[in-house]
C-alpha cells in the first residue's frame, strides 16, 4: 500500500504539477466567484453560458491530456480517440435519456422518444441498467476501456505500430461513426441522444447545475492530469518512453512492450471516456459526428500545438484552439477551416515542440543552462 501511495503522490512533489494544479484551481475559483458574486450587468460577470463553454473547453483539455499520454509518452499517434470520447459520451447520454422517464414527447415511461418513434416495443438489452447512475458511470469507464483493450490487445500483440496503427485507429472511429449513424443500432441514429432533463436529480438547465458540472470537469481534469503524471513518472512510464524512442531495443532488454502499450492505451481511452461523459450533459447532445475522423485528428493538433509529451502543453493547446474556434466560427465561419488547416501545417513545420517547447527554450535561456536539454523525438 505504501508503494502505491508514493506512486500516486509523487506528482505532487513536482514543481510543474504544483504550478498546473495551482493555476487550474485558481481559475476554477475565479470563475465561480465571478459567476456567483458579480452583478449581472457588471463587465466582470461570467454568464452561465460562458461557464458551460469553459466547461466544454475543460472536457477537451482532459481529452487532449489523454491523447498526449499515448502520443507523447508512448509514441502512438491515435487518430481514433474521438471514438473513446464519444463512447463515454454515449454511456452518459444513455443514462440521461433514461432519466427523462415519461417527460418525453411521447410520454413513454421506459422507452426514449426515438425508440417509440421507431416503433420499438421494448428496451434493447444493452440499454438495461442505464437508469442507475452508478452503472452508467462505470460504463463510462468500461465501454471505452473495453474497446481499447480488445483493439489494443490485437494491435500491439501483432506489433502494429507507427503509421499503420494511426490509419487503423482512424478506420476504427470511421467504422463506429457509420455504425452509430444507423437507426437499427439503437442509439438514436444521426440525431443521437438529446433533450436531456436532469442529472442525479439536478435540473440540467439551472445555472447551479451548470456551475457544478463545470467544477466537476475541472476536478476531473486535475485528477486526470495527476494520474497521467503519476504514470509517466513511474517506472512503467519510463519504460513507455523507452518504447516510444526505441521499441525494438526495449523489447530486447526484456520488457513486455505490448503490455506497457496496452496498459497506457487503455488508461488513456478511459480518460477520454470520462471527458466525453462530462461533455454530454454540458452540451446537451451526443451524436455520431463525435466519431468523425476529423474530430479525432483535430485533437491531435491541439496536442501538437501545445507541445507533445508535456501534458500541460496539451491543456494549453486544447484551450487555445477551441477558444480560437469559438471566435472564428462566430465572426467568419468560412475562415475557420483555413485557420485550422494552416495551424496543422505551421505547427508541424515550424513548431515541432509546440508552445511548451517555446516556454522551455525561454526558460533555458533565462537559466543559461544549455546542458539540460530534453530529448523529444
Amino acid at each position, binding site marked *: 500500500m505504501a508503494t502505491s501511495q508514493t506512486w500516486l503522490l509523487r506528482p505532487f512533489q513536482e514543481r510543474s504539477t504544483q504550478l498546473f494544479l495551482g493555476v487550474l484551481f485558481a481559475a476554477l475559483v475565479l470563475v465561480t466567484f465571478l459567476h456567483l458574486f458579480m452583478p449581472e450587468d457588471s463587465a466582470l460577470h461570467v454568464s452561465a453560458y460562458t461557464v458551460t463553454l469553459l466547461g466544454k473547453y475543460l472536457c477537451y483539455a482532459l481529452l487532449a491530456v489523454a491523447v498526449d499520454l499515448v502520443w507523447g509518452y508512448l509514441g502512438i499517434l491515435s487518430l481514433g480517440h474521438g471514438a473513446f470520447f464519444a463512447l463515454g459520451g454515449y454511456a452518459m447520454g444513455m443514462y440521461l435519456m433514461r432519466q427523462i422517464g415519461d417527460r418525453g414527447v411521447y410520454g413513454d415511461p421506459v422507452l426514449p422518444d426515438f425508440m417509440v418513434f421507431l416503433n420499438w416495443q421494448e428496451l434493447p438489452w444493452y440499454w438495461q441498467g442505464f437508469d442507475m447512475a452508478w452503472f452508467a458511470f462505470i460504463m463510462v469507464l468500461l465501454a471505452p476501456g473495453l474497446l481499447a483493450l480488445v*483493439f489494443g490487445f490485437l494491435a500491439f500483440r501483432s506489433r502494429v505500430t507507427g*503509421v499503420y496503427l494511426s490509419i*487503423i485507429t482512424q478506420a476504427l472511429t470511421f*467504422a463506429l461513426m457509420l455504425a452509430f449513424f444507423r437507426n437499427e443500432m439503437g442509439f438514436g441514429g444521426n440525431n443521437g441522444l438529446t433533450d436531456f432533463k436532469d442529472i442525479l436529480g439536478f435540473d440540467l438547465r439551472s445555472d447551479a447545475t451548470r456551475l457544478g458540472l463545470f467544477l466537476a470537469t475541472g476536478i476531473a481534469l486535475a485528477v486526470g492530469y495527476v494520474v497521467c503524471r503519476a504514470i509517466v513518472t513511474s517506472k512503467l512510464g519510463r519504460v513507455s518512453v523507452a518504447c516510444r524512442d526505441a521499441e525494438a531495443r526495449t523489447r530486447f532488454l526484456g520488457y513486455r512492450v505490448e503490455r506497457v502499450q496496452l496498459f497506457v492505451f487503455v488508461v488513456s481511452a478511459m480518460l477520454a471516456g470520462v471527458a466525453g461523459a462530462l461533455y454530454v450533459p454540458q452540451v446537451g447532445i451526443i451524436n455520431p459526428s463525435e466519431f468523425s475522423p476529423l474530430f479525432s485528428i483535430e485533437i491531435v493538433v491541439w496536442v501538437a500545438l501545445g507541445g507533445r509529451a508535456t501534458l500541460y502543453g496539451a491543456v494549453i493547446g486544447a484551450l487555445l484552439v477551441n477558444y480560437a474556434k469559438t471566435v472564428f466560427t462566430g465572426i467568419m465561419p468560412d475562415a475557420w*477551416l483555413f485557420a*485550422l488547416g494552416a495551424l496543422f501545417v505551421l505547427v508541424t513545420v515550424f513548431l515541432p515542440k509546440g508552445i511548451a517547447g517555446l516556454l522551455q527554450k525561454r526558460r533555458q535561456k533565462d537559466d543559461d543552462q544549455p546542458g539540460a536539454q530534453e530529448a523529444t523525438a
Partner: protein
Amino acid sequence: MSIHRLLARMVLAVCLALGATLANAQAQTNAPEALLKRLVEAGQAEKTDLLKALSETGDERARGWLEAVRDGKLAMIEDTGALVIVVNNRGRNWQIADALTGEDLGEMSRRDLQSLRVNNALRADIEGILSVIDLTVADPGQRLDAARNLLGEVNEALATQLQARLQVEDNGQVRDMLTNALAIYQVEQGDVEAVATLSGSLNPTVRAALNNAVNSDDPALAAAAEKALASIEQKLKLNRAAETLYFGLSLGSVLVLAAIGLAITFGVMGVINMAHGELIMLGAYTTWGMQQLFPGQPGLALILSIPAGFLVAALAGIAIERSVIQYLKGRPLETLLATFGISLILQQLVRTVISPLNRTVVTPEWMSGSIMVNEALSLTLNRLYVIGFALVVFAGLMLIMRKTRLGLEVRAVTQNRAMARSMGIKATKVDIMTFALGSGVAGLAGVALSQITNVGPNLGQNYIIDSFMVVVFGGVGNLWGTLIAGLSLGTINQLLEPWAGAVLAKIMVLVLIILFIQKRPRGLFPQKGRAAEG
C-alpha cells in the same frame, strides 16, 4: 379558307381521276389508296380485314396509316371525301396533311373533318398488325424489339403469321425471340412440348407465362413448367452473381484508381499524404472546369481533362512536396498531420472559390447507356469505361516503375537513399517526380470519379480512408497488391451488400481489414528483402 377549299377540291379531282382510270382493273381494289378509301366507309367488323390487307400490300406508307388510324388521326374531308392525316388536332382549326402524298394542306376547321372512329378492339388488332410489319423491316435491332413486344401478345391469327415469318427470318436472336413468343402462345393453349422451348429464357414475360402454366389443370404441363422455371431460376442466379461480380469489380476499380496514386507516394516513397483525397477532388473539378470551357462537347472535354487533370493534380502535388513535405522527411506522423491540414485548406478553398454545393459533370453520350448481355444482365457503360481506365492507368504505372529510368531511380532511392545519391542520382529531383506522379494519378482518378459520383468538396474525404485501407491491405510498396486488394475489397463489399445493407457492409469490410492487419501487419503481399523496412 377558300384556298384550302380549292386545294382540297384539287386533291379530290386528282383522286377522282385516279379512281376513274383504275376503276376497271381488278387488281386496283387492292391498291393501298382504294383500301384506304374503303376503310372509311367500312363497318367496324370489316375494318380489321381491310387494315390487314393494307399492311400486306407492302406499301411503305402503311405503317403511317395504321398508326394514324390507331391514334384516331385519319380523317375525311366532309365536302370532298379526300383522306387526310390530322397532324395537330388542338384548337378549333386542325392542321392536316394529305394521307396519300404527305403534302401539307394547312389548317382546316374541325367541323369540316370527319375522323375515323376506332374502338379498343380495333386498336389492339392494329398493334398486332404493326408488330408484324415491324418484323419485316431491314434493321435486325428493330425486328428484335418488335419480336419482344409480341411476347405474350400472340393470338391465333398472329401465330400462323409468326410461323410464316419464322421460315424467312435469318437473324438468330430474332428467331429465338419469335420462337419464344410462339411457345408462350402454345403453352397457353396447353402444349406441353412448347415448355421445353421456354426453359432457357430469362425474359420476365416468359416467366409469367410459365408461372401461369404451373397453376394449370393439366398435371403434365404443370410439372414441365415447374421444371422449366427451376432451370430458369438457376440461370437467373448465375446472372445475378455475374452482376454482383461486375458491380464489385467496378467498385474495386474505383478503389484501385483512388489508391494507386497513394501506393506510389505512401507505398514507394513512404510519405503519408492525407491530402491525396483532395488531389482526387482537384482532378474531378478539372473535368468540371473543362466542361465549362467546352460547353456542349462533354466528350471532348472529358478526353482533354485526362491530361489536364493529371497536370493540375501533379502541380498541386509538387507544390505540397516543396512547401511542406520536404521539411518533414523521416517524420511520418508529422507529415500525416501537415498534409491533413493541407487537405482542410484545399477543401475550404474549393468551397469558397467554386461552391459548397455539388457540381454536375455531364456524361458524354458514348459513355451513357448500357450493354445488354441478356434479359437479366446488362452492364452500364460508364462503369465499364472506369474499369478499363483503371486497368490502363495501372498498366501505365507498372511500365513507368519497371521500364523507365525514372522508375529505376525511384526504386533505387527508396531502397537506399545514400547509396543512390552516391551513384549520382539526384534524390531531391526523384522525390519531386515521384510525388508528382502519384499526385497526377490521383488527378486521373478524379477525372474517372467525376463520371460516376457527385463532384463536391467532400469527394476526396470519402475516398481517403478507403484508399489507405486498400494500400495497407495490399501491402505497402506493392502495386500488384494494391490492384488485387482494391478489386477484392470492392467485390467483398458488393457480396455483403445484399444481405447486410450498404452501410453495414462497409463497416464489416473495415472491421475485416482491421482484423486482417492484426494478423498480417504488412498486408497481403509484404515486401521482402532489403526493400522491407525495419
